[in-house]
């Protein structure tokens, strides 16, 4: 399972402040803590309040790479901000993200080809987030077709069915889980799948419980990566256990420790 740590995001107040004041140690701690907790990729997002997102992206990437060597998921709606990060990454990056709009895909896949990056493709377009499995699959197929045009390998593409909060779109849970399963059958080799997990519990009271329950169900549906809070130990334990039950790792009594010793 590819675990993308979500915490370096300017949307969070303390991180936004750290970015504004260029407080390197706060960002570096956040990076190191997430990797220690099991993140294999770190998401990097300058946040909505950044005054100079290109410069902030550059500073974030440089600061993070001083303390860890994991891959980065460069997260922005603006291609030039992503490119700023792509110029600096030491390991192959993930671009977070494109949707299924023609112009957006052209820009993002060009960047991916230029910098040999992987791409997260959101199953949505300018008309918004779909509310059915079939529409999600249609959009995912559009993204795959475009990626092929740019000679990307299918397993370098992470398809995201777009997770919606359970308290506002309760009928979407099953549609999303079934989409994940179907995405894996869209081409050969199968594309990767990912979700922005925390969104499922937005505005609810028992966020951690809902997150880990949904994550386990999504893993059972074939999910191969997720954008999560890796510092949520119970979430990580549930993920490790789900993979164990699916025979991804050999059982032993200390299977949680064994996974973490990897």
């Amino acid at each position: 399972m590819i675990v993308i740590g979500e915490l370096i995001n300017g949307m969070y107040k303390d991180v936004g402040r750290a970015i504004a004041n260029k407080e390197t140690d706060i960002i570096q701690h956040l990076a190191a803590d997430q990797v220690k907790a099991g993140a294999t990729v770190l998401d990097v997002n300058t946040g909505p309040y950044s005054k100079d997102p290109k410069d902030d992206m550059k500073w974030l990437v440089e600061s993070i790479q001083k303390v860890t060597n994991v891959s980065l998921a460069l997260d922005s709606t603006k291609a030039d901000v992503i490119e700023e990060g792509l110029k600096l990454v030491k390991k192959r990056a993930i671009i977070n993200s494109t949707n299924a709009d023609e112009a957006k895909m052209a820009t993002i896949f060009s960047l991916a080809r230029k910098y040999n990056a992987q791409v997260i493709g959101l199953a949505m377009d300018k008309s918004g987030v779909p509310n059915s499995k079939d529409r999600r699959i249609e959009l995912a197929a559009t993204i795959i077709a475009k990626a092929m045009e740019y000679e990307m390998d299918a397993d370098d593409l992470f398809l995201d069915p777009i997770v919606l909060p359970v308290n506002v779109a309760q009928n979407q849970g099953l549609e999303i889980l079934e989409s994940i399963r179907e995405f894996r059958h869209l081409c050969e080799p199968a594309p990767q799948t990912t979700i922005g997990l925390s969104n499922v519990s937005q505005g609810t009271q028992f966020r951690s419980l809902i997150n880990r329950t949904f994550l386990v169900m999504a893993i059972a549906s074939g999910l191969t990566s997720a954008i999560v809070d890796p510092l949520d130990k119970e979430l990580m334990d549930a993920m490790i256990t789900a993979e164990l039950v699916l025979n991804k790792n050999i059982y032993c009594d200390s299977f949680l420790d064994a996974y973490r010793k990897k």
Partner: protein
Amino acid sequence: MPVEFVKEKYNGAINTIEIGNGAKCVKIGGETTLPFLFEEGAMPNQPVIALEVLDTESPDQAIACGGRLLCVRLASIHPDNGNRPADEVIASLGLIFKKCGLPLIIVGCGDAEKDNEVLPKVSQAFKGENFLFGIATQNNYKTLAATCLADGHSIVAESPIDINIAKQLNILITDMGFDPARIVMHPTTTSLGYGMEYVYSIMERGRLAAFLGDKMLSMPFVLFVGQEVWKTKEAKDSIAQGVNWEIATAVSMLQAGGDLIIMRDPAAAKSVMKYIEMVMKK
């Protein structure tokens, strides 16, 4: 029409373990492929055959066989088999070591209490020689692991034909601060005709997990083929049959992924050494 072979590529590798020091140091493990599939990966170290002698036996025949390691089983320390004290055993081992000049694999008698009393003293007497000591089990590993850690030896970790316990024991030993690259796994040996296929399948499962990145199963395998074969009625009926039985079992264990095979009969050992030379030719 030419047939295209399907080739597997793995990311993981088996740990390389060194036994002994200097020019006599023997390396085992290091594979990045299932046994002898040189098209798919590498076997940087040839599997090793070690002859086994009892601590009260003359090692001359075993040494003459030309192995690069010698295994000494401390049978005489068993309370029912002489109950020899540690200092006598250390003296015998000293003589054997002097005579053969080979790095030793030292195995206890199987009585946990006596092994825990004698093996730490033996380990200390050969501190820094980088020997391989056995046998640690899930119920009795702490004393041996602590002593090997202190004296710079490697350890044999044994599980009862159970991949889950094998993994668990490796974790327990590494939790004590033991370097995973100093553990050799004994998946339990059985002889041809006595469930060998089950051991084979367990080894294969462990290997595939290791190649997919499971660090707690990335240890080389040791198999005590000699002791198992010479217990069977087929071997007891006829020595010639026993020799063939030992060869067949050893070769099967090499094909299952054995890195270190402990054998009893010099003629059988020589045949298997020849076999290794043959299959290692690419």
